[in-house]
């Protein structure tokens, strides 16, 4: 019997269904090497096995280092443990955005948490959470990061970011502020990439680096100026040694890019772009990523979309991840909105509940969904 050409493939449906209706949901393309019966096949995406149900949700950030793991669930900050338990640490506030957690590691033994416009420091030795009350700390802060001994804080809806004192996130000096004057408009995201600081604006991106200036160590890298911004505050992720984001500039948006040096390389297909064009907004899109079985996946959770979209760096193919809602007879986006790798597990945070799952190929459940059976 003749083979069905193209039966194994990616999601490539376009708005005109009669042109191409191809979809791949909860499978991803795998490449077989050697002399296989088939060169490509569809492997199942992992299920969601519950790791722990936190005291509050949604899970807005996950972070791990040195076998320790923390999460922001709802307005609360928690430490998670390998055995599926957690400890409530304190309140950090709640808004519609993701929280961020970064660390200055063994030198400063501090975590820098940003949530709902405020900053907090968690002392890794004393296990205490302290609001940042330094008068010069930039509020409302939209996200934080750590580069070369400094915590960086991006002030929301501005073009300015600030650095902390060296290895001390409780001290912030009003003079340690940078205005990103190379771009117009606000800076939506501040992302440390290879010890550089990518500042992604609404229409343009500039990259800064530590030049060792004792007054203010960070300065723009000459020539590292990209005519492409980002479409949402948390629409970026890093995997496979690269930054991935969905772009935006004065020409348009809703295209997925991968940074190749300082050049954005388009990775979305027209099919993906047509699907993204049909959602009401991507300003609340959140990207997350992980690497498993040789595949690096960059995924976008778009609340207004039917499914979550995943780009497989290994095959450069797209697939969708979703939950099936039998009551509505419709797909819903995958539960994940953030990820961390710890205890040999891919932990993901639930976009709608206090649940933290681990992605598990031997689990076939989809986690939780809204519509229940009576």
């Amino acid at each position, binding site marked *: 019997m003749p083979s069905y050409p193209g039966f194994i493939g990616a999601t490539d*449906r376009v708005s005109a269904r009669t042109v191409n209706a191809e979809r*791949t949901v909860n*499978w991803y393309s795998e490449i077989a090497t050697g002399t296989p019966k088939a060169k490509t*096949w569809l492997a199942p995406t992992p299920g969601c096995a519950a790791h722990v149900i936190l*005291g509050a949700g949604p899970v807005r950030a996950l972070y791990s280092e040195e076998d320790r793991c923390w999460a922001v669930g709802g307005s609360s900050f928690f430490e998670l443990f390998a055995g599926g338990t957690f400890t*409530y640490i304190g309140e950090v506030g709640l808004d519609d955005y993701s929280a961020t957690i970064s660390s200055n590691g063994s030198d400063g033994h501090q975590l820098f948490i940003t949530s709902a416009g405020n900053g907090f420091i968690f002392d890794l030795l004393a296990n205490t959470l302290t609001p940042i009350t330094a008068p010069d700390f930039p509020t409302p802060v939209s996200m934080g990061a750590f580069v070369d001994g400094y915590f960086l804080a991006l002030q929301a809806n501005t073009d300015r970011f600030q650095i902390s004192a060296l290895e001390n996130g409780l001290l912030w000096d009003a003079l340690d502020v940078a205005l990103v004057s190379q771009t117009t408009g606000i800076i939506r995201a501040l992302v440390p990439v290879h010890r550089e600081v990518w500042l992604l604006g609404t229409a343009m991106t500039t990259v800064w680096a530590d030049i060792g200036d004792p007054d203010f160590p960070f300065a723009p890298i000459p020539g590292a100026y990209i005519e492409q911004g980002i479409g949402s505050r948390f629409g970026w992720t890093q995997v496979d040694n690269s930054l991935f984001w969905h772009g935006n500039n004065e020409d348009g948006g809703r295209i997925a890019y991968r940074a190749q040096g300082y050049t954005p390389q388009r990775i979305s297909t027209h099919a993906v772009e047509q699907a993204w064009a049909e959602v009401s907004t991507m300003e609340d899109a959140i990207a997350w990523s992980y690497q498993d079985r040789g595949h690096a996946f960059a995924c976008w959770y778009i609340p207004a979309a039917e499914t979550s979209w995943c780009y497989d760096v290994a095959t450069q193919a797209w697939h969708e991840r979703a939950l099936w809602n039998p009551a509505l007879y419709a797909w819903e986006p995958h539960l994940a909105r953030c990820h961390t790798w710890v205890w040999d597990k891919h932990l993901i945070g639930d976009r709608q509940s206090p649940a933290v799952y681990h992605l598990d190929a031997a689990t076939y*459940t989809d986690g*939780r969904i809204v519509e229940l059976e009576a």
Partner: protein
Amino acid sequence: MPIPANLTPETAIAIGALPYSTTQQVSFGGTVYSVWYAFTAPDSYVYAVFAHGNFDDYFVDTKIYTLVGGVPVGYRSFGSNTFSDRPCYFSVTSGVTYYIKCEEDGDPAAPDALLTLQFQRAPDLGIATGDLLVPDEILGFPAVVLSPTTGAVKGYRLNIPDSVSGDVRSDGLFLVDNRTVKNLELFQADGTRLAVVPFNWTGAYPIIRTSWTSGRLYVINRISEAPGPTDYPIIRTVLGDGSFGPVTWTLPQVGLVGAAPSHDDTVLYHTGQGYDVFADGAPVQRYDLVTAAPTTDLAAGVPNYAPRSLLVLEDDTVLVLYGKRTSVIDAFVRRYSTAGATLNTYALGEENVTGFASNYLFRALGDPASFWVRSHPRVGGTFNTSRHRQIRISDGVVLATVDTPEFLSGVMQGNTDGSEDLFGNSPSCPVFTWHGPPVPPGTSGEPSEPEPPIVAPETETDTRYLRRLRRAPHVNNENRRVFLRTFELDLERGQGLATGQGSDPMVMLRLSRDGGQTWGEEIRMRAGALGAYTQRCLARRLGHARDTVFEVTVSDPIAWSLVGAWLDVEGGTS
């Protein structure tokens, strides 16, 4: 006359045919003796003992024991009964002998003390649909069945635990808490226990409420389950098998007092400063279960009044019971539209609605025209009696008034407060109408039922399996008709599970014959049970079309690996 012979359990007088009544002289030579009677229960039910003296100064304490290894062990203890007091009720287990000690508790020198002992089986008039079921929270006392018109006690159900919260869903299944062991118990409509659901709460009792249209039972743990200072309540659903639904929600509000799920996937709730403290002027708030976020309030607060109970009616309007306990105790019920407009106000008057009682408002199944409200009117200077009123929604006419009778139910051995447990003034227990089949008279007690399964607490994995879909490229031949002879899926076969879902994994095949615009019925194809590595997963004689799209969907819990597909087609000429 000699002194009484029945001074020990061993010499107790056997209680004979019921109803039993006897009189015994118990004072001799300046001593009033304590005497013993024995009763062997022929069935498991509730019995009433009434022991009293013949004058005001001769009080009788009634204590009931069982013998354990020949030693009397206390079972129930009732306070002193004078001749003017009332019977004491206690539940018994079939075949067990109970020893009743009538103990003098008055003038020790009463020269002519006469003890009167009356003993009988409690009323067992059967249960009719619409009767009120009251799983009161008196420890060790069974649920009581009341007539919805006269309030008379019609019977008892021994297997329904002492509860503080509970509700019934539209198919008659009802869920109550067991306040003694702190879990949940799910019952079928006929009162047979279906499942025991481990559910440990800490301090504050849960709220159990039904969403009438969805049929879901919601359980709200009023205290956060997370360590830490934030008392954010957790909302769950309990499914028909007694398991928890896969979703939990966290209500971002401390001090929850009451809540009720609405039809539109919101939960209405109101809060107080503490769990048993009035919160005058508190609004009725809403939480959206879909977005898991608070949404607009249903109703602003009423000055000087606090919401005490919520009920969503069949037409999606909302009843809110308001109470005031300042200088003048007062209560009323207000009915709101979903938009928050006031539709009706039903005055209750000088009645108390304090304490935790999320079930102050309830309704009879199948009766969209009325609701029930429970309150505590002032009687003799106190607010102890529970009054249940059936109120017509349209005009507020009171259709029925049922006061819970007040009677002694005894003190359990080991109770330390020494206070008498009085059924009838238990403000927190749930009340709901019996929706199961009628129970004939004389059979109300302990229904024969299998040991209920214990459902695992809060399974953290969903039971809904990942659904996977592959929609393949179009099949067409320059817009000529294509006859689809055979479609065969190439996949990893024989991966079925040993038992349960997945033991016979299936692939659902759908075809679109118009290029992906519309879809036909599903065709099921076997993917191979465990070890069936040569199972062919195919479908034949699939008709014809000019522009076909094949779609396969799977959802059985196995490792689905798709390798490809084969397609046998024959080109047409037109």
